[in-house]
């Protein structure tokens, strides 16, 4: 069981900011493939995964190939616009 978080327009398209997911996906790309099947909103949010950013346990991941072993919190969001 992992906690999946969504921010900004991902959160809006999916309709929630957090959900608990039961998954055996080995990496981020596989998790995205699973999430896309959950609703049309999910499919829309993940239409272009390359444009998104992913954080694993609050650390930015380098790529969609990052493994999920041991990860408890996965966050998806658009490029950050802080400062």
């Amino acid at each position: 069981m992992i906690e999946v978080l969504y921010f900004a327009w991902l959160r809006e398209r999916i309709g929630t900011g957090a959900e608990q997911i039961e998954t055996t996906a080995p990496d981020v790309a596989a998790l995205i493939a699973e999430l896309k099947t959950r609703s049309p909103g999910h499919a829309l949010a993940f239409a272009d995964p390359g444009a998104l950013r992913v954080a694993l346990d609050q650390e930015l991941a380098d790529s969609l190939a990052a493994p999920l072993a041991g990860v408890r919190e996965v966050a998806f969001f658009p490029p950050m616009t802080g400062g």
Partner: protein
Amino acid sequence: MLRLQSEPFAPGAALDAFVTAHPGAGAVVSFTGHVRDEGGRLVALEIEHYPGMARRAIEAQMTAARARWGLSGVQVIHRFGTIPAGGPIVMVATAAPHRAAAFEAAEFLMDHLKSRAPFWKREITADGPGPWVEARATDEGALDRWR
């Protein structure tokens, strides 16, 4: 010191407190970012953030800056929530023996806050919530300077 808050802050009071806390520093640089009204089009910015990661990411950036430039002090204030046009969003302050270190460290922190801290801005106009602000390629490119 890091403050993540929804409340406004006074840049002057924050600067004086920072200077007082670092009496030996020869050089203190501050950056303050405010909501531009974009010619009257913007009423406010709404800033969403990822609280746990924001704190971790900014603290890591502060630690990196402190080590790289030998800072005697570093301070970041970043707001979230709805900030009216003209209001302060972010403040960075750095203290170092000499000016080059203080300037570079402040720029390093601002460049990382822009593209590597989990905040997202959305425009609020007279008609209500508008589009999410898109990341600028120049902000991502600014990070190349520090690699």
